[in-house]
């Protein structure tokens, strides 16, 4: 019997490529031996699965088309099989499951969106703080730099006193003769009105000759924290600051002289 099974005849029997004689032989053996019958079933299962798995996708339309064909044309005699559409509980379970699934997916999606929104807000917050830190750092560096300028060992400091226009105004000049650098500190001047700028003049006396050494436009003032480098002028005897129209003037407008100081 073992030999019979191992001969390979059962496979060919399932494949349908055996002769009638061989078929008879197999069927007799199967009737006599449970092992042969079991072997036949296993082989069949394997081969049904094999052919199933090489099948391309089979559209459900085909099922409906064939069913229609069978009912309409081949089941006319009385007592013929009446086909019912597939309406088992299983199909409802399938749909119910689909609905539940869609709902769950929807909820998940909403939760995801919420979390994504929170994460975004947090990220924005973080960016803001990072920017603040960066700004503070920058400001700090600027202050250090300016403080360094003011503390220079070789500085001569010239205080410019407020004049008629604004007696409370004041400014300071830092002149570093060694480095030939001149800075002006205008922290004591009111903010220049729109369309106006402060202009710094180096003056030589007898005769009084003003020379512009810097136009302090607003951007420059803001950028430098009010301590701005101006041109060096050899032989300067006094400094004055006037308020001038934006872009500066060739000669100082004396009515708008805010501060003045002698070297």
């Amino acid at each position: 019997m073992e030999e019979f099974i191992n001969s390979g005849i059962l496979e060919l029997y399932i494949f349908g490529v055996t002769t009638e004689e061989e078929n008879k032989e197999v069927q007799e053996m199967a009737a006599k031996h449970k092992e042969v019958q079991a072997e036949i079933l296993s082989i069949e299962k394997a081969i049904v699965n094999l052919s199933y798995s090489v099948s391309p996708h089979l559209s459900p339309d085909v099922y409906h088309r064939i069913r229609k064909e069978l009912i309409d044309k081949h089941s006319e005699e009385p007592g013929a099989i009446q086909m019912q559409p597939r309406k088992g509980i299983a199909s409802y379970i399938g749909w119910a499951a689909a609905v539940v699934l869609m709902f769950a997916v929807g909820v998940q999606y909403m939760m995801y969106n919420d979390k994504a929104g929170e994460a975004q807000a947090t990220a924005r917050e973080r960016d803001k703080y990072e920017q603040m830190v960066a700004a503070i750092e920058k400001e700090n560096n600027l202050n250090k730099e300016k403080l360094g300028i003011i503390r220079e060992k070789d500085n001569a400091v010239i205080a410019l006193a407020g004049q008629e226009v604004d007696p409370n105004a004041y400014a300071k000049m830092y002149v570093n003769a060694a480095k030939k650098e001149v800075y002006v500190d205008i922290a004591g001047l009111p903010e220049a009105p729109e369309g106006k700028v402060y202009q710094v003049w180096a003056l030589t006396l007898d005769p009084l000759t003003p020379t512009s050494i810097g136009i302090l436009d607003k951007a420059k003032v803001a950028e430098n924290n009010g301590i701005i480098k101006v041109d060096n002028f050899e032989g300067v005897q006094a400094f004055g600051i006037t308020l001038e129209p934006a872009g500066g003037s060739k000669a100082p407008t004396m009515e708008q002289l805010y501060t003045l100081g002698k070297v």
Partner: protein
Amino acid sequence: MPLIFFIILDVPNQLNNRMTQEELLEQIYKKDSKAFTSLYDMYSKSLYGVIFNLLKNKEEAEDVLQEVFVKIWKNIDSYNESKGRFFTWILNIARNTSIDRLRSKDHNKNLKNLSVDNFVHILDHNATVVNKIDAIGIREFIKKLKPTCVRIIELLFFKGYTQQEASDELAMPLGTVKTQNRNCINDLRTILEV
């Protein structure tokens, strides 16, 4: 996630092995209203696999599948178990109908896409998600069959060659074809665990 879900829902009856041939036949003989659906669920994909492997054309294979079901339905009374397994009976109808179609003039006109030459190639050429069997990974296993096995199974099972024809085609002694085929199906059964 949803896709996998539906794939699981769609695991075919034959793989769950819910019904035996005897139970199916009982439904059919009793003219049970669910008989056609059961028959279709159990065997349509397998038959379509065989038909498609011969015709290599989906539309034509669908057409032949319909013809095969009509033939099964019309001739069901002529089947009895002394003729062999029910699956073997419908398999023969499927192969013969396909081969008739291949020989018809109609087919030659529509002949296309014959580049794939065996069932393993069909696996490669139809590697789409909709081929739901992929969910349980059988495809990948089938591809592990030895090349000789692919050729033998292709000829004997899919094409319905006789032992003699297969022996000529493969230049292999008659007895060897039979035992080799047995070994190959054993490999397949090991893979499929049946």
